[in-house]
């Protein structure tokens, strides 16, 4: 079994995660975690949809920010995809998508303040980077033959519209619609940094112990995402996109002086700002690296590796829930509901809830990341097993799972997992804002202490770390010849 490179790779990653566990801070620190968890579930069963009028507004704002952000991101991403062959464009896109929506929001908050533009750009910018990459991959796959047959002298735009776009239009549309679902999740968590979306009201309800209000919000969010095929129709899309900007809310006006100050003073490293020159820069950078960057990087990597393996184990355990090789339709439908909930809850919200209940440590983060990512991969793998036709006398039960199904889907399972490696790391970094000592924690503290120069360097480091992991992930996928469609 160990002669297979996929199995060997899996065990190497398992070993790394186990070593990581020795260093990780895994604990339940709350005094009565199970009672809190019980109260929370009680809140979900007894949702209170009418406690505050803010709930519906929050839902509306969440949808509006998602639509405007994703629409702008997809337009910009499409234009970038057309010039994606150029190396500077590719590097630029890799960079902007390596920075999490919440980090973008934290940056824009410093100079645009609570203006709607902050939320819109926080979604649009990283999404443009992702759209550019995926759109360009989709455009690459177009059959080149029709383009070759075109009469010479056909204009570039005409050739593009006839020979390239129609062939990949369905893929572009499907992917964009899928990204819209991701956009709703991104939009919801922007509330955690103060924008008027779901996260804001969720945090407010939680901090007051109003679990029934929080439960109502989560349920509405699931309904919103689960019913997307019903209300997101191609014909209605222009209405939504054109209407959404009017529902972003007023926010607070932009103070242009702040914008100027941010770029000319705030983000200039302190020693340069204070006139100490380049000589002062070294001790400043040393202090930043030793006390913030290195511990942040270390914790981010440890947590990422544990969460990656936990996600993998969970998805292998979860996919039979929706596989039609096991159980009846009733159990399968229940399985679908569980996986839909797991994957539609943003990991940030899961981590926030678990952190409130169990107290600060890496445990809530690992469980949140594993639940969300395990839900996504389990869903994809489970769906894949449904298209497998086994011989009539194939074994049943656990033998079917371990001999027939897992070996058949293992490669695509690994492909999805390594694809999500970079996503898990990006999320791990951001979970620091909740108080786990990953890079996000140090970014957030630097911003709290009004040291934007430090925050910018730390965000830059986070981006580079993500790009690094993405490169290794792609290398492994290529080495093991694993292919996958993008997920978010």
């Amino acid at each position, binding site marked *: 079994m160990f002669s297979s490179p996929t199995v060997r790779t899996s065990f190497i990653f398992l070993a790394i995660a186990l070593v990581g566990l020795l260093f990780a801070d895994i604990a339940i620190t709350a005094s009565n975690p199970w009672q809190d968890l019980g109260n929370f579930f009680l809140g979900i069963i007894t949702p209170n949809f009418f406690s505050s009028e803010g709930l519906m507004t929050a839902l509306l704002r969440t949808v509006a920010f998602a639509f405007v952000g994703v629409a702008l991101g997809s337009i910009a991403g499409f234009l970038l995809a057309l010039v994606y062959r150029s190396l500077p464009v590719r590097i630029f896109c890799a960079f902007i998508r390596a920075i999490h929506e919440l980090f973008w929001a934290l940056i824009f908050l410093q100079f645009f303040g609570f203006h709607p533009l902050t939320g819109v750009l926080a979604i649009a910018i990283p999404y443009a980077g992702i759209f550019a990459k995926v759109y360009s991959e989709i455009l690459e796959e177009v059959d080149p033959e029709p383009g070759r*047959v075109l009469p010479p002298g056909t204009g570039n735009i005409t050739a593009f519209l006839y020979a390239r776009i129609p062939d990949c239009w369905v893929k572009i549309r499907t992917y964009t619609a899928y990204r819209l679902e991701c956009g709703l999740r991104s939009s919801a968590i922007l509330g955690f940094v103060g924008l008027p979306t779901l996260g804001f009201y969720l945090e407010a309800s939680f901090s007051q112990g109003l679990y029934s209000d929080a439960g109502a919000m989560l349920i509405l969010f699931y309904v919103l995402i689960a019913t997307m095929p019903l209300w997101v129709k191609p014909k209605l899309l222009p209405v939504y996109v054109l209407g959404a900007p009017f529902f972003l809310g007023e926010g607070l006006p932009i103070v242009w002086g702040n914008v100027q100050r941010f770029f000319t003073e705030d983000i200039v490293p302190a020693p340069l700002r204070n006139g100490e020159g380049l000589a002062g820069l070294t001790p400043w950078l040393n202090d930043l690296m030793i006390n913030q960057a290195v511990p942040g990087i270390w914790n981010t990597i440890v947590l990422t590796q544990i969460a990656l393996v936990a996600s993998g184990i969970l998805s292998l355990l979860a996919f039979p829930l929706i596989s039609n090789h096991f159980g009846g339709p009733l159990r399968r439908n229940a399985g679908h509901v569980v996986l839909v909930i797991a994957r539609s809850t943003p990991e940030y919200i899961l981590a926030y809830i678990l952190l409130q209940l169990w107290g600060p440590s890496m445990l809530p983060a690992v469980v949140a990341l594993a639940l969300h990512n395990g839900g996504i991969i389990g869903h994809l793998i489970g769906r894949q097993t449904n298209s497998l036709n086994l011989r009539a006398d194939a074994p049943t039960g656990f033998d079917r799972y371990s001999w027939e199904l897992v070996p058949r889907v293992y490669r695509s399972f690994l492909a999805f997992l390594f694809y999500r490696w970079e996503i898990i790391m990006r999320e791990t970094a951001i979970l620091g804002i909740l108080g786990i000592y990953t890079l996000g924690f140090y970014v957030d503290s630097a911003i709290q202490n009004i040291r934007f120069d430090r925050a910018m360097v730390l965000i830059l480091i986070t981006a580079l770390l993500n790009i690094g992991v993405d490169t290794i992930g792609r290398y492994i996928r290529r080495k093991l010849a694993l292919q996958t469609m993008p997920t978010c």
Partner: protein
Amino acid sequence: MTSFDLSGLTASFSGKRVIGPLSLRINTGDKVALVGKSGAGKSTLIRLIHERVNRDSSLIPQDLGLVNALSVFHNVFMGQLDKHPTWYNTVTLARPFSKDRNEVHTLLNTLGMTEKLWTPTASLSGGQRQRVAIARALYRNAAVLLADEPVSALDGPMANSVMTHLRDGFSTSIIALHDVELALRYCTRIVGIQGGQVALDQPSENLTTSDIMSLY
């Protein structure tokens, strides 16, 4: 420019030469059939000639080059994209002009497929797809036709009718054909390809089926 010299044509795949060096002179009015067993290099030769004439020809490649998501009309219309400004082509994508609709309709009529004008080509049968590519080549109306097994998916009567249209529609043509009978009936000159070289080059009237069979 319908008469042209093709000299020093070569092609290699992964270091192995599959064509040439090969020279061929095509005169205006030549209706050339390329014959030879599969793998002899006919498709590669068609492709090389297409590049050599700067793509200024009506081409029917073996895999047809259809845009599957577009309708039959649009695939045929693509033969004249160079004749219109960009705005005209863009409007046509959404709503074709009646002049073009009528032209394409008439053309498809002669090929026996009018009822499918607005069907995406993805949902057509092999023979119908082949006729869409043929219609596109006819609509393109270049001086030279380059076709690679254009009637391989058509039944006898339809194949003969289409070959008649291709013969009458182009003054000069180079058609790769595995059907020797069709080659002798519709072409004036037979060029046999063997091992990437010209093994036979004769007017059709000098040849019989058995002369050509020696190539296979």
